[in-house]
């Protein structure tokens, strides 16, 4: 990513500050009833680290770097895929009394 615009010093701090503020405000609006899917959902979002892992792995030039880069992508992919799977499952369970015909029975049957 060398030829991109350099993000250094204060520019980086501005990005961090604005992102932290956005996160705080957005998350503050989420009702307590959704806090578990919210947590697994934000958990999923930091799975974006897999992109950094891919960058490191593709630029690896020794066996050590390859091994650690592989590890990074493996864990990052797990973070992203797992976080998505559980969040989607949980959110599908929240229903209003208007649509009580579809209960969570299939989910219940699935878990051993």
């Amino acid at each position, binding site marked *: 990513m060398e030829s991109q615009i350099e993000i250094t010093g204060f520019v980086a701090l501005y990005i961090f500050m604005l992102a932290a503020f956005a996160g705080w405000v957005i998350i503050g609006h989420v009702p307590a009833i959704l806090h578990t899917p919210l947590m697994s959902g934000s958990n999923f979002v*930091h799975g974006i680290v897999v992109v950094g892992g891919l960058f490191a*792995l*593709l630029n690896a030039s020794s066996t050590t770097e390859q091994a650690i880069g592989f590890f990074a992508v493996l864990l990052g992919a797990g973070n992203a895929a797992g976080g998505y799977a559980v969040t989607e499952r949980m959110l599908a369970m929240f229903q209003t009394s208007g649509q009580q015909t579809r209960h969570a029975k299939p989910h219940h049957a699935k878990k051993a």
Partner: protein
Amino acid sequence: MLTMLPQLIIGAADLAAAFLFLYGLQRMASPVTAPSGIFVAGLGMLVAILASFLYAFDVNEAARPYLLVNIALALVALAVGGGLAWWSGKKVAMTSMPQMVALYNGMGGGAAGAIAAVELFGGKANGATQLIVTLLGALIGAVSLSGSLIAWAKLDGILKQPLRIEGQQILNLAVMAATLAVGGYIVFVTLAGGVPVLAMPALIGLFFGLALVFGILMTLPIGGADMPVVISIYNAFTGLAVGLEGFVLQNPALMIAGMVVGAAGMLLTLLMAKAMNRSVGNVLFTNFGTVAKHKKSDMPGSLKPAEAGDAGIYMRYAKNVIIVPGYGLAVAQGQQKLYEFVKLLQSAGVAVKFAVHPVAGRMPGQMDVLLAEAGVPYDLIFQLEDINDDFASADVALVIGANDVVNPAARSDKASPLYGMPILNADKAKHVYVVKRGGGAGYAGVENALFYGDNCNMVYGDAQAVLVKMIEAVRGLGLSAAA
């Protein structure tokens, strides 16, 4: 230039990903839009991952001979890591959600730490700022990895007891100081030159080792009921580590996503700590179990046991009932039976609401998910501040598997360790039934005056078994009630 195009596409994809993450999280503000929110965020992830393969067009000179192998490795890692996690995430039971989230947290932290390790071992971080930020991200990521693994083991019941040793705090402090010292030394040697006492890779290894040990030591003494705070804090840590490594890699999407999650995790941590009447520092650095346990204080009144069936019938003829579910209900796997009972009551014309305390469960909001899984519509589920005034006009409060969160001592008894904690005012209801496995104090080791109140009856037994008896008793009243 031919190399410009991949760069542009990657840049645009990352920008799109950052937007979709924020937009997706924003849609989580309501249960109606939340499912589309996670889908939108997932789309962002997919776009970013696909685009990142374009890095292959612009790898550094040294990595070029390895490129094909590296691409193959990347595909294998994505398939194996993503596949295994997807499969486990699809089949994990809702009660095991906290340990699963802890595990994914650890993975993210580990990935951030590993990226830092590649940068450090490869000597790619140059300049003081980059080096320090890399090390900081490595430290936080490694602590998050090992700490989350311990949290996972605790929540999964592999580690049963909080492990506390003499002088734990001093040991933790020493390990932390040693980690920082090694990190500082790495910076010093790299910038000022000179020959280090150990070879550089050994120093970096030592740094990671110490950070991992610190994560373990920090998490071991923390008890099971404090886990909501711990999970939230490691979520924030991993986000922070990802954001910092994003700076090192000069990737704004990682910086933004990481920092958003870091702030979100911090907010949830503070909310949880507040709901537990503790400060974050208090959870992390003191051992709750060592708080002087109150001796059995003399409670006015007595415990009055009641039959499950009688309690069920009493509620059948009540006008409105508020149910306070606690973690004990989940332990007994009684959610399905509870909702079955509630449906019986509803068909008999009883108005039923659920009152959920923020710390009911092992992670923020877990009880809400467990109720939703059992089929309870979310418009029947109310949070503490929304329902607390309704108890005074409720005919019955049914407390199942909850204790400390309904202890009136939190309102009145300044000497109680619970004093000041926000509680559900179940004691204000006209009548209270408490379903409980047996006598005894709650997690905080405090007697509960609610149980001794004139308006309270105890229904002893396993929550699920008690609910089955209640259902049978109400059904026995006749078909009109059992519609």
